[in-house]
């Protein structure tokens, strides 16, 4: 069976189901969207903490990750050559706002970063172009941290995503991802100083917030009365996405970093901090992947009847 006919057969099977899984975001080329959202979130977080800790390699990492995220978004689009048209609907569409945010961020970072890195650059970081770049990148960063969760929250067809907690959860993920990126860059570029200890403390606090928000979202989906949202939770905890959730999100993204942090395996060092950041980021990726793939469309039938 060719890939195309397999996809067609899959659609026919899905259309017969009461609970039809969404496959456009997360499967096939849709995986690029998950990668794009993950990279852009981490980039914005890395930029934020790079500014807070005055850490230029973190800013560079944020810029590179955002560029990678933009390319991943383009790879996902059915018609990437028309990407610039996404600026047209900023008034209502969160994707448009995200596109504007990413553009602001990349242009701003391209203005602000070079004088910090290259000696003899035509303008300084504390000149007008530098301040302009700082401002644009900061605006873009805020949009990037905020917009992704709202893209999902606006999806009325997928009740599991259509939760007011989703945007807050995605913001927390962006911050957690930013810290992870900084821990890795600190290990790659130079030895971590006192900043690393503070970063780890913030990582623990944000991880706790993520766990609480996620538990609330699951509880809301299970008790909210929407059968499609309940089915999504089942898919994630005991269905086709369970392996990704337990191994990717819980084990890699939570248990391994906490065990490493406890110092039972090895004393805290540059390498261990980098490993914590890497595993934490991987876990965040799997969290987004499982949440997106677990999306189930709202059933159309007014009441649930046995399907033929």
């Amino acid at each position: 069976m060719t890939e195309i006919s397999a996809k067609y057969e899959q659609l026919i099977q899905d259309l017969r189901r009461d609970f039809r899984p969404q496959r456009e975001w997360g499967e096939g080329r849709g995986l690029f969207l998950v990668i794009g959202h993950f990279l852009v979130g981490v980039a914005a977080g890395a930029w934020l903490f790079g500014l807070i800790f005055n850490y230029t390699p973190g800013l560079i990492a944020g810029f590179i990750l955002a560029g990678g995220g933009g390319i991943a978004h383009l790879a996902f689009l059915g018609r990437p050559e028309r990407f610039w048209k996404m600026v047209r609907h900023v008034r209502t569409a969160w994707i448009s706002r995200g596109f504007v945010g990413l553009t602001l961020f990349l242009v701003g970072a391209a203005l602000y970063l070079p004088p910090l890195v290259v000696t003899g650059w035509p303008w300084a970081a504390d000149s007008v172009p530098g301040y302009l770049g700082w401002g644009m990148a900061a605006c873009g960063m805020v949009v990037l941290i905020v917009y992704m969760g709202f893209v999902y929250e606006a999806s009325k067809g997928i009740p599991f995503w259509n939760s007011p907690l989703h945007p807050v959860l995605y913001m927390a993920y962006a911050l957690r991802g930013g810290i992870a990126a900084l821990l890795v860059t600190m290990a790659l570029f130079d030895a971590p100083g006192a900043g690393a200890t503070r970063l780890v403390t913030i990582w623990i606090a944000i991880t706790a917030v993520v766990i609480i928000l996620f538990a609330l979202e699951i509880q809301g989906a299970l008790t909210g009365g929407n059968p499609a949202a309940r089915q999504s939770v089942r898919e994630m905890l005991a269905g086709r996405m369970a392996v990704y959730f337990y191994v990717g999100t819980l084990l890699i993204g939570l248990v391994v970093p906490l065990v490493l942090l406890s110092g039972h395996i090895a004393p805290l060092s540059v390498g261990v901090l980098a490993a914590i950041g890497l595993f934490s980021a991987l876990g965040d990726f799997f969290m987004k992947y499982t949440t997106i793939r677990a999306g189930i469309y709202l059933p159309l039938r007014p009441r649930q009847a046995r399907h033929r």
Partner: protein
Amino acid sequence: MKWGMVIDLKRCIGCYGCQLACKAEHGTPPGVYYARVLKSEEGQYPNVRNLFLPVLCNHCEDPPCVEACPTGASFKWEEDGIVDIDHDLCVGCRACMMACPYTNRYFNDQPSHYHPQGATPYEAARTEPHQQNVVMKCDFCRDRVRAGKPPACVANCPTVARIFGDLDDPTSEVSRLIKERSGFTLHPELGTGPSVYYLPA
């Protein structure tokens, strides 16, 4: 004016005539269904009955797909309330598919033919106008309607289960049927204001 459709579930026999008429009218490729019929059964032997639910784009009053579209490719005609797609603007982000609570949008990324050996000359001619890697959906057969004809699914329904008309006109047949036979919409709780009504079976 606001075009709308009433589907009488008591009259629908699940013949798929609407689905086929739509395919023939629009030449949609495999995997793209502007009109579908959902079949299910309820009860236990010997008291069992078939349920048919024909579905299509609901051409909502407040369409979430239009709100979610980043390019404005999904839009609503002001003069008749039909929700449409400008395929030249669509970037294929599929946000509208996630936003539509009626799951009646399809992404056309399939080769436009039904047979393994390739498209027949007829198929090629019919499907050629469709762009690939964009989202497609029902447009209430806007070209037919503008020419004074009913949509293909309405014209070809053998049991006259589908009635098309102006929802803004209180004397139209659709308005009368909705009022007299307690017409209902799918997922009214979402506040989208669908233009497709169902009469109870």
